[in-house]
């Protein structure tokens, strides 16, 4: 294990898209505001960000807008305006870069920084950064400081919003172990379920479980990694991420699918899950691909390139359905995949508004 003398900072802007919207619509402050899709809860789209007022109704990101409307009928729904968020994001990142060159952005509103080289006490560094972000943009962010990325991310979430939290390895038993195991980076719904099957609910449960027992449910190296993370160990460096080439999803059916209507519905569901991954990174996609594997393992893909890159759910959905129409679909289907590629983060040019969807 390397010497625990790194200082990693995780900065996570609070309800970023919604907060940017509130800056230009101050009259909405204090109201439940939901940013997502085209801002019409009766149309396709999922929640990108909700204000803390809206979250009290159980609204969270990635939830379909329609569901959010059911939970809070008087919420204010606003369309995603990436250009505005990008402008605010650029200002925040300029401040982060003044702090450290070792910076790894995660989307428009989140970043890891390696600040090990800074002489100041980490807590002062965090406090000053928060103050500068606020004075420059009038937005708040939560800062987590820790010897590694894993703990820094957990830390930034502990006192959100407007939090400033430092975690050391010594804090792990008291402050990290009580948290649900899903809080750990890399524990998604599937892993979470399998851990629950083993009776593991909290990070502490996981830390207390011998690796050998974990290895009965997971491949050996995965079991090892889970155990290390539960003890607060993580050696991943902060590194600029490679530009993503595509974002996609695939699913293999338990039973081969013979209904084209069902395929169309599933493809749309998959796309609905992909669009937020696009928008939270500030990306737009130009090419849409639908992949189909038939029962006999013959695999075919159909792609469509849009005139202009888009992150608009309706435009992308129309393209997905068109790709699907171009498949022959003459046999039972065992796998369906939807992916978005030719991703671009160049700011959108002037935006032509639409008469019809």
């Amino acid at each position: 294990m390397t010497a625990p003398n790194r200082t990693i900072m995780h900065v996570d802007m609070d309800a970023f898209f919604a907060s940017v919207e509130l800056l230009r619509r101050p009259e909405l402050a204090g109201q439940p505001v939901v940013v997502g899709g085209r801002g019409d809860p009766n149309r396709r789209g999922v929640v990108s960000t909700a204000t803390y007022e809206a979250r009290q109704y159980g609204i969270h990101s990635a939830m379909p807008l329609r569901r959010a409307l059911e939970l809070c009928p008087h919420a204010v729904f606003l369309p995603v305006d990436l250009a505005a968020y990008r402008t605010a994001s650029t200002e925040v990142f300029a401040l982060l870069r003044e702090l450290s060159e070792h910076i790894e952005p995660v989307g428009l509103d989140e970043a890891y920084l390696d600040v090990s080289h800074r002489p100041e006490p980490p807590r002062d560094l965090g406090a000053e950064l928060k103050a500068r972000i606020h004075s420059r943009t009038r937005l708040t962010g939560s800062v987590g400081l820790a010897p590694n990325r894993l703990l820094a991310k957990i830390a930034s979430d502990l006192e959100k919003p407007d939090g400033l939290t430092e975690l050391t390895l010594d804090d792990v038993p008291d402050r990290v172990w009580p948290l649900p195991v899903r809080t750990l980076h890399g524990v998604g719904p599937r892993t979470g379920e399998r851990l629950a099957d083993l009776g593991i609910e909290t990070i502490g449960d996981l830390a207390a479980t011998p690796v050998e027992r974990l290895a009965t449910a997971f491949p050996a190296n995965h079991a090892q990694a889970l155990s290390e993370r539960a003890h607060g160990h993580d050696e991943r460096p902060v590194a600029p991420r490679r530009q993503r080439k595509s974002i996609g999803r695939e699913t293999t059916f338990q039973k081969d699918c013979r209904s084209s209507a069902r395929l169309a519905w599933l493809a749309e569901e998959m796309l609905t899950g992909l669009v937020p991954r696009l928008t939270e990174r500030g990306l737009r996609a130009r090419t849409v691909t639908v992949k189909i594997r038939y029962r006999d393992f013959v695999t075919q893909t159909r792609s469509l390139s849009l005139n202009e890159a888009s992150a608009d759910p309706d435009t992308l959905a129309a393209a997905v359905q068109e790709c699907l129409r171009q498949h022959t679909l003459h046999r039972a289907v065992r796998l369906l995949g939807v992916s978005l590629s030719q991703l671009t983060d160049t700011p959108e040019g002037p935006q032509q508004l639409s008469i019809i969807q």
Partner: protein
Amino acid sequence: MHFEIDRETFLKPLQSIIGVVERRQTLPILSNILIVADSNSLSLTSTDLEVELQAHLSLPVEEPGQITVPARKLLDIVRNLPDESRLTVRVEQDRAIIQSGRSQFRLMTLPAGDFPSVEDIGDVEEIELSQANLRWLIDKTHFAMALQDVRYYLNGLLLELEPDHLRAVATDGHRLALAEFNAQIALEQPRQVIVPRKGIQEILRLLEHSDEPVRVELGNNHIRARLPHLRFTSKLIDGRFPDYQRVIPEADGNCVHIDRESLRQGLVRASILSNEKYRGVRVVLSGDSVTIRSENPEQEQAEEELSAEYGGDDLEIGFNAGYMLDAVGAIEQPSIEMFVTDANASALIRGEGESQVRYVVMPMRL
């Protein structure tokens, strides 16, 4: 097959039907036209599987027959023969032989039976109107059709037939054009059909500004128009056109009255310095003027101040100059009225006092 024909008599129908013969063909026979010679008539047919054009002419035929020959080559040959030439066309084995004076051409052929022509379009309802009227409907609207949009039903023109109305609507999702006129249409019930872009472009080429009638037949999957000596057939787009009534704003609220020609020229000049890709211009409405501003990525700027009559609040709206020019260019009245709400809502544009033709343009956020 064997017939004789004058160059001019042959050239005109060939030119009328050549439009649907595409240059890149996946099926070799689609590069050909079908020639059918009966005892005293000749028909020439071209198709791209979506649109079919057929020309007829009366002609004494020495030996009836049917064959397909390469369309563009035949047209080029006929076109380049001297004026007032006389041609002989005949088939020997699998070659078509065109002879004129001391010129002879031997063209490859494909069997007539393989040519995918559409004779029967099923049960039809028929209406008749003047060529000029149909041409007018298309002329006023066709430019707003979408081009290769994934919403395939937008890549065409909506024709709406109601008992006392005939209406055409086109939209690419960003702007919309609507033209209609009153007519007694003997139909059992109202019909909506979407004619594909290619079909609209072809029929527009064929229709003349004349009171000569055109008979329009509507089948379940086809539309057919019969003109003197020409038959046009197009598949219909199977899809539901958007509810356009919902997106046409009412003619009320803030209204600008402006001279058509000065607006057109102002837009043309301002757009020179707009971003070439988006052609966005800012239209600033204030008091008695309309100012059009543009700026390109090189930060060159244009400003056009036009006198106008406007009673509303000061307003600045971005528009695609191309969409505005399409609408303004199609308006015949010397003065234009434009109804606006704000920078995010559609504008209604029409000739002063006009009710039959309306244009809707959505703004652009610049």
